[in-house]
């Protein structure tokens, strides 16, 4: 199908009608790309992802997905709603809200069951994902008993079990230990290799550097202030500093504490 997978045209949104979260955002997302949404806290990244997943709808402007404008009325059509949910998966920032079943196994199976996948097929997906995320030993456990890293893996597995074409990820590596971050990046790379479009919101510029094809930067005015290749943005130190995106590092040289901004460069650059 020609044209972008998602297109936002001058999208505006305010919580409770009075707290602006997005102010005139326009962007498009191409099929098969890895898109990073970057910005300081409170710039509207999570709202934008929720809108791409049609969990909220714009107050003004339009969101188009797969050529159709997403509206609340459109989602009253059960057929379209089912098809959209099969094609788009969303991993929430807070695993607590996403893990609502009594066991890990039920949480992973929840999506495909609701979306009508046959039980033997669900069992096969469950087996594959438990092996990929090394969850086999905790399938029978209650999600609330898991560590943060395990919860994050289960949330990702629960969305991948749907086998969506598009993965929306809100801060997929936030608060995780380095090994878990590596595990998750490896899975995401494999999923992208399988043709998925991946859109993720993050503050982690390492993730952007390693994983993104395109970066959209959200500004304090809750609008899109720049879209470019990661190399262009990560090398623009002034721009990163102006938008609270620079990691300040402190380390010792001999016995002297040395503090400076952490610089990124595009792979191969």
């Amino acid at each position: 199908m020609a044209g972008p997978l998602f297109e936002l045209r001058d999208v505006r949104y305010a919580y409770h009608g009075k707290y602006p979260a997005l102010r005139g955002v326009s962007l498009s997302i191409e099929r098969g790309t890895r898109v990073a949404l970057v910005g300081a806290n409170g710039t509207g990244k999570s709202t934008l992802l929720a809108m791409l997943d049609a969990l909220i709808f714009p107050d003004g402007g339009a969101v188009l997905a797969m050529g159709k404008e997403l509206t609340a009325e459109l989602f009253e059509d059960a057929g379209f709603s089912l098809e959209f949910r099969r094609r788009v998966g969303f991993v929430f920032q807070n695993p607590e809200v996403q893990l609502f079943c009594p066991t890990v196994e039920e949480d992973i199976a929840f999506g495909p069951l609701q979306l009508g996948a046959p039980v033997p097929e669900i069992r096969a997906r469950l087996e594959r994902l438990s092996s990929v995320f090394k969850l086999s030993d905790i399938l029978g456990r209650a999600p609330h008993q898991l560590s943060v890293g395990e919860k994050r893996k289960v949330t990702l597995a629960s969305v991948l079990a749907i086998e969506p074409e598009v993965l929306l990820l809100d801060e997929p590596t936030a608060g995780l230990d380095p090994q878990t971050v590596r595990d998750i990046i490896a899975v995401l790379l494999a999923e992208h290799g399988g043709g998925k479009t991946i859109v993720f919101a993050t503050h982690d510029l390492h993730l952007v550097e390693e994983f993104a094809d395109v970066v959209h930067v959200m500004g304090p005015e809750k609008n899109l202030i720049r879209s470019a290749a990661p190399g262009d943005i990560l090398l623009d130190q002034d721009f990163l500093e102006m938008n609270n995106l620079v990691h300040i590092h402190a380390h010792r040289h001999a016995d002297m504490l040395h503090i400076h901004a952490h610089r990124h460069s595009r792979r191969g650059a």
Partner: protein
Amino acid sequence: MGTRRGRFVERTITGALSFIKESIFADEYASSRGFLQARDPRLKAAAIFALLLAVLLSREIAPIACIYALCLLLAAVSSIGIPYFLKRTWFFVPLFSLCIAAPALFSIFTPGEALISVTIFSFNIAITKQGVAGAGIFFLRILTSVSLCVLLSLTTRHQRLLGALRAFRVPQVFVMTLGMCHRYVYSFIELIQNSHLAIKSRSGGVRSPSMGRRMVAWNISTLWRRSYDLHGRVYQAMISRGYRGEPLSMDDDRVTAADILCLGAAILILAGGIWRARFSS
């Protein structure tokens, strides 16, 4: 001592929360192998309902006591430890009902044949035989009904239980609300526990009853706002994965001969209860 009373408030909050959490999310019993776990959830729910009716219809202690004994037997053969089962079933409701039923023991409320009689300030109070029988039936009826419901919930996975409700044509909105409540209750408990820990970390714990009361008041006032926000996001997370209000489960609900036999036995007990109720009247 104020500190001790303060600790009492703290212990009460944490104890109550962990009990609720354990009670609602004790899914390990539903996952373990046992007699009731192996039963089809729809027929099991129907059989439990028949037994509940039999308990409600019975006007004598003996038949209710027999059904209560059956509950204990079923718990034992369903890998539920009897001490745990007693803790779950005797807590709150039956003990509370015992307090309600206690006045009925006395001749002031239930006149009849005196079993024990005491005189306080020239006022004669007696515990009557009829009072004991009335209060006993009331208490045993509640205890047995609670035990039957706990047996059903302990031995059936949450999703399958909700599925069974839908099989009985319980409206979707009701089942959906129950399903959501299950998740929200847990989230609320987490919120309260975390708030409690946050207060404790900044103040060194609940040092006095007045502080305990203030803490509860803070929790109540913030819980509404936070839970409102949280329930919206949990619902979004469910919608995002295709939730449409129907509880679905991977388990294959197949009716076996043993399921039919169990339901038949429960219906027989109910029929016996109805016959006995008519006969005794």
